[in-house]
């Protein structure tokens, strides 16, 4: 991989080669995913089928997009608590503008049919704006991300609820969505569900941003040591602003697809999704201390929870027990992860 020659034996001995044990521990999450699938299949072999996996991917496409958005923030060493509420805002915004013309309880009774892309762009722009607001508060006023995004979380929910409560809707669930919109959630191209395709494209784009762009490199540097990044002449404030903006846009995209997939929206859509996203990232090896995280890891984290949700129900495990299993996996993953990075004494 590298053409650097070893300078002397001392160095060779100082940093020992990776052992198999270490290899397993470095890739523990993939092992966990495989073990989970095998364990469920042992109980019910019919679990291993194309239909099952398609279902799991369908259910988790939006979650993957939201978790990928969250990964930008966690890698900088921050957190975005407003993610779930942005999902709700985008779901309500897009659904309110994409109802069937003949639906009896339209949000905008006299609105003409808009082109499909316009409400989606509006919803994503709203997410982008809320992300930029987060980034602005954090970088301009040095408010800790936890607090800043806690604030926007409440603000976004409030704004969404006011909108949702507008007459004639008066806080009624939004339904009767246009088929070209719901098609995004349930339709297929070449027998691949569109929503899965979108998630794959987003995954690829995020991977490129993480690994191949200056923005991505700066993100890892800021999370690894913000002071060093600043001293190195990185514009930390602007980088954070952009990253929170991207994250907000992705949360909103997740919200739009959630509305399309479920065929409706209320102001409570997306509630607590931020916690699922954080859990998936953290289980996927994103360090909550910043600086560390990979896109394959995040996707695996999402899939682990997807498999647990779907698979444990499939083999008839009580949903309350499922919660306990999920919680244990989160704690164990982070405990394991931190051990990996603990300074050697």
């Amino acid at each position, binding site marked *: *991989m*590298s053409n650097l020659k070893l300078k002397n034996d001392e160095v060779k001995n100082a940093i020992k080669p990776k052992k198999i044990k270490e290899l397993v521990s470095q890739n523990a999450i993939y092992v966990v995913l495989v073990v989970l699938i095998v364990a469920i299949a042992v109980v019910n072999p019919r679990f291993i089928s194309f239909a099952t996996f398609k279902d799991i991917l369908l259910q988790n496409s939006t979650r993957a997009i939201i978790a990928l958005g969250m990964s930008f923030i966690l890698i900088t060493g921050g957190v975005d608590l407003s993610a779930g509420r942005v999902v709700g805002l985008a779901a309500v915004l897009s659904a309110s503008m994409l109802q069937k013309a003949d639906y009896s309880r339209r949000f905008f009774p006299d609105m003409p049919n808009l082109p499909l892309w316009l409400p989606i762009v509006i919803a994503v722009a709203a997410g982008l704006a809320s992300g930029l607001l987060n980034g602005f508060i954090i970088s301009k006023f040095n408010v800790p991300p936890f607090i800043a995004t806690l604030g926007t979380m409440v603000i976004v929910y409030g704004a969404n609820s006011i909108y949702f409560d507008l007459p004639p809707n008066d806080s009624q669930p939004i339904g009767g969505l246009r088929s070209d919109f719901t098609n995004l959630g349930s339709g297929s191209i070449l027998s691949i569900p569109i929503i899965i395709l979108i998630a794959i494209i987003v995954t690829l784009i995020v991977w490129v941003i993480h690994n191949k762009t*200056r923005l991505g*490199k700066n993100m890892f540097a800021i999370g690894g*040591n913000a002071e*060093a990044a600043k001293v190195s*002449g990185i514009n930390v404030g602007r980088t954070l602003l952009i990253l929170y903006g991207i994250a907000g846009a992705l949360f909103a995209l997740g919200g739009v697809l959630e509305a399309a997939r479920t065929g409706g929206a209320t102001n409570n859509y997306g509630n607590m999704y931020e916690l699922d996203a954080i859990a998936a990232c953290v289980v996927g090896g994103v360090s909550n201390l910043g600086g560390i995280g990979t896109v394959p890891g995040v996707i695996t984290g999402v899939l682990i929870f997807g498999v647990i949700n779907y698979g444990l129900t499939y083999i008839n495990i009580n949903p309350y027990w499922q919660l306990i299993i999920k919680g244990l996996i989160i704690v164990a993953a982070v405990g394991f992860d931190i051990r990996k990075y603990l300074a*050697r004494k």
Partner: protein
Amino acid sequence: MRETEFVLEMNNISKEFPGVKALDNVTLKVRPGTVHALMGENGAGKSTLMKCLFGIYKQDSGDIILDGEKVEINNSKIALDNGISMIHQELHPVPLRSVMENIWLGRFPIRRLGPLKFVDHKKMYKDTEKLFKELNMDIKPDTIVGSMSVSKIQMMEIAKAVSYNSKVIIMDEPTSSLTENEVEHLFAIIHKLKSKGVAIIYISHKMEEILKISDEVTIMRDGRRIGTWPASELTTDMIISKMVGRELTNRFPERRNTPGEVLLKVEKLTSPNPRSFKDVSFELRRGEILGIGGLVGAQRTELVEAIFGLRAVQSGQIYINGKEVKIKSPIDAKNHRIALLTEERRATGIIPVLSVLENTLIANLKNYVKPYFLLDEKKRREDGEKIIERLKVKTPSSNTLIKDLSGGNQQKVLIARWLLTEPEILILDEPTRGIDVGAKYEIYTIMADLAKQGKSIIMISSEMPELMGMSDRIMVMCEGRLSGFVDGKNATEEEIMRLATRFIA
């Protein structure tokens, strides 16, 4: 318990960190009721040895024998329970709590109320008062620590170490932030402790202090013990030559740079902070190495950080090539081809969780941006590995995480980071602090090469030999003010010290 002449014996202690043998079979024997000085250059292993004794590190091999009995010190609590306490080089009090809570932290006096336990604040206050009275210190027990001066906090830490009634007290650079009167005060406390039979292990770089206060001196170099002598048999010169272990002449590479025209001119630079730098003017020539000397607190770091745009400037001008420039951030500084290697390598230098390659390239990514925001991966790797090789960074591969390298090699990576930005002016703030001797020489060689190529270097250093051995000129600061320049070749330690203390009242 067996009777022995030593209260503490550390026998054949070895400790290895990735890439560095920090301690190699070190033995230290301390008699009760004496002050045992531990001396050596930065990186000689003094602090590491003491951290093994205090349970912060665990030695790889070797025994610790206390009062004739072998003890396993796995953490600091065990050390304290065994009668070993420590005044740390870096203070870490809990700033928002009171003095007494800091002193009794982890062992608060308890008042019982039936099955319930409460902290007994009254007793704590009285005990603290008594402790301070015994030590003649004038500190109120309920003062919030964060509101006190550094020297007061240092005195509090001294009182805290005494309060454990230990058999052995480790003092790691206890006077670094004390005033002269307070140093005398500390010495009085030490005499009192000695008379009670307490043994003190005293680490300091200040020769006069060592010769004045200590009974025995152990000298270390490169992780090994050189020897132990009664203090009365030693002189400053003897200590230095034993610490350095080689002739001063070949500690530094030969320099063949010739300073040219003025590149950087700083005029009357003044900080908005009245206690920081004031009215500092100097010139830096092309191909010159300008040393900045001074005591801790001389505001040298603050000055260069202001030039680099990390700190605010109230008044004064900076000229580069005769043109006035405004530098408000490191981004501006970089655009003016200035680089800064900060003093705190860990806090503001390395990005520990990233690879050597990423650490090398992080200040210079803009040169690798291709269309559509993508980075030129191949060129990045080529450039990065080329400079890693050029600076002789010892690393298994460029993908190794930087935190796994030794301090010296980390420092070389940081220099590589800045060289890639093609700076004309390199500011190096204590470039060899905490680095082993071999790597030091390599860093000096890099500096000499750069100066020869016509780059200008500003080097802050607190090590006199380094300052005199590497600088063309030395600028000395004291209390934020410029106190004078001396020629690098003809400078004497006395002259620099005189300038460094010029404005101290």
